[in-house]
């Protein structure tokens, strides 16, 4: 129940994000979710896309440093306490969140939380055991 995410190294200079998104557009790749983490000197763009391998290949060909990592996507009802429920469990079992981001799916009823935990296998096992709905990459792109 892992979702493949691609990460791209970004120098803090103008036009880089635009360049990435146009490369993806030219290749018919759809972005489902993204986040940018930044420091004073550089940033990391994290993307969930419908064609992971193609995206990695074309960005790499475009001169970017690209990495592929696994994250967990948890679907929760889009209402107060949705995120808190997941984090409470994570805290109870001693999981650390390295980073996370979220989006609301088209229907508006559910939110999708993307997590990178320090211990991914443990996280998946615990969340499934507690009855959380974990999504696959395909499911995310089908939303």
């Amino acid at each position, binding site marked *: 129940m892992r979702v493949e995410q691609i990460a791209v190294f970004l120098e803090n200079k103008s036009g880089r994000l635009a360049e990435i998104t146009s490369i993806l557009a030219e290749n018919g790749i759809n972005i489902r979710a993204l986040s940018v983490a930044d420091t004073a000197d550089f940033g*990391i763009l994290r993307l969930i896309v419908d064609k992971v391998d193609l995206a990695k290949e074309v960005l790499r060909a475009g001169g970017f440093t690209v*990495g592929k990592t696994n994250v967990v996507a948890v679907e929760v009802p889009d209402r107060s306490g949705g995120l808190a429920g997941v984090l409470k469990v994570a805290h109870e079992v001693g999981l650390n969140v390295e980073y996370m981001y979220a989006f609301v799916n088209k229907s508006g009823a559910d939110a999708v939380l993307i997590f990178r935990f320090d211990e991914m296998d443990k996280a998946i096992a615990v969340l499934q055991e507690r009855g959380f709905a974990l999504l696959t990459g395909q499911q995310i792109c089908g939303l």
Partner: protein
Amino acid sequence: MMWVEEIETLPRSGLESIQLKRLQILVHRVYEKVAPYRAKMDAVGVKPEDIRSLADLRHLPYTSKDDLRDNYPFGLFATPMNDVIRVHASSGTTGKPTVVGYTRADINLWSSVMARCLAMAGVTKDDMVHNAYGYGLFTGGLGAHYGIEALGAAVVPVSGGNSKRQVTIMRDFGSTVLLSTPSYALNLADAMADAGISTEELKLRVGVHGAEPWSENMREEVERKLGFKAVDIYGLSEIIGPGVAMECLHAQDGLHILEDHFLPEIIDPETLEPLPHGMTGELVFTTLTKEAFPLIRFRTKDISRLIFEPCACGRTLVRMEKIKGRTDDMLIIRGVNVFPSQVEHVLMGIDGVEPHYQIEVTRDGSLDVMSVLVEVSENIFSDEIKALERLSRKIQAEIKDMLGVTCKVKLVEPRSIRRSVGKAQRVIDHRKI
């Protein structure tokens, strides 16, 4: 004023006869005592007896920083180690530093040449000298210190750092002379401005600055901001440290080489042929009187020109022009010698780092700032900020360990450092020197 007047105003013929006599003794001694020198002389078929005139110097092989590295640490010493009473070190071109040694006579010699240099700057026993050169393995601090004491002036051995405190000390102690790198002098000027201390509250009369190249523009800035006359001092640890050549306060026009001890030549760095008087080229020195670590025809890689016309101050010693640049890629960052190869050495030692890097040097106010640009390859990339920050701190710490200089590490995108067809452009120096 003149520390050793009878030497410094000798007619050239008198000086040259002293030089020749000393050179002959030196070559005999080095041939006998230092195996690597003997091997190099044998390889070109020169014997000590072949040195009959100063012009015969050209038959002797050169010594370079590579020879020093190959014989690290003490292989070129000409005296038994128990005659050595001090060692200093400076950065070599790769991992190993250049180590130099001094006997008691060498320390006395160094003190006296340094004292003569200070005398050229008008320093006397009545002065209070604020010595802000770094003390330690670097020759600057201790070399100047002994010279100040030999001259009979009072030394304030403050070393580098903590500019605010330095300014207070200069004011409270009534220091009349400042010894520092030119960039640190500007740093002190900023610290004075920050502390609201004006130059009128200080008694500084003259600044003696060296250990890094500086331009006439920078001299004007130092003189304007600190309200004194600034003179240039030249030296390098291999030859002895500070005290090889010095500008006189009288003319501020070229540096008088103490050539009764350090014999200069100017050579073409490509053909390695000595150049005629007055031509610009690479400066080469032979130490005529040093005991522990004599050097024959040491290539400094510094570019200069020799001026043989007598100086307005009355000295007949040959002058060298302010250093114009280097024949290699050595950088001087806050007085510390830095070779790009050292930075490369550090980067190559870190797993996954590729040999695409560039060094950018800027001047922030009066302080040199070195940034090392490292391309982020997939081997070192992570989707987590903290992993990349850890990497950049590691690079910074290892460069600091190796060079003693704190740099900024900038992670950049792949191929963003321009590839060149031939030799990579490793250094971009934005400082105006």
